């Protein structure tokens, strides 16, 4: 092997990536060539410096949690979701269930069979502050009722960390307080992705759902929630 061939294979040799025959031939050449030997040494020093000195960037502590949160939203059984969304019977089924639910409601409520459940649908940030106030009043009037707030489009904004209302007041304390009283908050993952909003920015008490709209429909049709739009 001559110097020119050696130069081509130098890095492979240094990284132990050459097949045996080439490696031995290169080694033979190095025995007789001080220039190539010096070159290998320089490379070795550089490579060792890189290995020792280049930092491994450690992820923030919240990364694993944020990833798992986003995945939980994605891990909903696809078959039931697909059946729901693409079924031709979608609209009549929802209507029939809604009517049936509405008709049966007094009966069910009287037997204590179904607690009051309300889904608040917020898809516009302009309604957020008023909605939170409404929910607070509603909660006081019906302390046994269950509340879920589902947000999408610009409605997700009040559930981002540091978000402030029109008066400059931070939303999060109100959200925390309602959450402590059992109100659940949901954020639409499709909205997050389309608007490039990081999951890590969502306040911690909120859960992520694959689709806000689908969640609003599901809560009504499958779990008997009553729909409210503030």
């Amino acid at each position, binding site marked *: 092997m001559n110097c020119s061939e050696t130069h081509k294979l130098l890095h492979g040799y240094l990284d132990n990536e050459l097949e045996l025959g080439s490696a031995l031939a290169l080694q033979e050449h190095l025995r007789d060539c001080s*220039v190539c030997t010096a070159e290998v040494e320089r490379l070795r020093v*550089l490579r060792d410096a890189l290995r020792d000195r*280049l930092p491994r960037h450690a992820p923030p502590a919240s*990364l694993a949690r944020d990833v798992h949160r986003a995945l939980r939203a994605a891990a909903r*059984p696809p078959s039931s979701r697909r059946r729901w969304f693409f079924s031709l019977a979608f609209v009549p089924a929802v209507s029939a269930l809604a009517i049936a639910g509405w008709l049966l409601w007094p009966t069910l409520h009287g037997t204590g069979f179904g607690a009051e459940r309300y889904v608040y649908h917020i898809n516009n940030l302009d309604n957020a502050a008023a909605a939170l106030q409404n929910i607070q009043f509603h909660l006081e009037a019906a302390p046994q009722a269950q509340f879920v707030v589902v947000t999408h489009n610009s409605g997700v904004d009040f559930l981002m960390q540091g978000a402030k209302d029109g008066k400059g007041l931070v939303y999060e304390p109100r959200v925390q307080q309602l959450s402590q009283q059992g109100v659940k908050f949901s954020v639409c993952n499709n909205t997050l992705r389309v608007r490039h909003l990081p999951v890590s920015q969502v306040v911690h008490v909120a859960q992520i759902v694959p689709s806000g709209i689908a969640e609003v429909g599901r809560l009504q049709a499958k779990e008997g929630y009553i729909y409210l739009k503030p």
Partner: protein
Amino acid sequence: MRKDDRPERFEEFIAPHLPAAYNLARWLTADADAARDVVQEACLRAFRFLDAYRGGNSRVWLLTIVRNTCYSMHEQARRHSGLEEEFDEESHYPAAFAHGAPCATPAEPERLLQLSEDRALIQRAVDSLPTEYREVIVLREIEEFSYKEIASIMNVPTGTVMSRLARARSILQKKLSSAFRQGSDV
């Protein structure tokens, strides 16, 4: 209905490599927030396509997705890349390798050793590399992948991995040498 065992498979095959995924994304995007977004998006994709993972090195599999996600998501990475034609090894090997090159003196290794004490200098030097060179350095010197694994991640032949690595190391040598000579930044 087949039970969806993707959560378990994700925990077993993908989750252990989250730190490596973040490290690569962080080096490629040069931004902690962007890196976080990339890893989240890459994990979503990995989860979605988990059925396509049929065993083999799951770290290579995940980091391939991370790398592709970086390039599709991150403007900066896109701007710096764009090496369309690969190097012809003969004509593009740096002059330093040739006989009688001025910097090929016996004292050189000692100088580089002194330079290497400065972690910040080395990190800055690698940060300033074009993306396609930075990524091969990170994959080789930090993640310690083989040429074959790097070739798989970067979707290039192994010969290209070697020549890109050679070029990257050559640029770094020049940057570090000149920084030492001038006593200034790379």
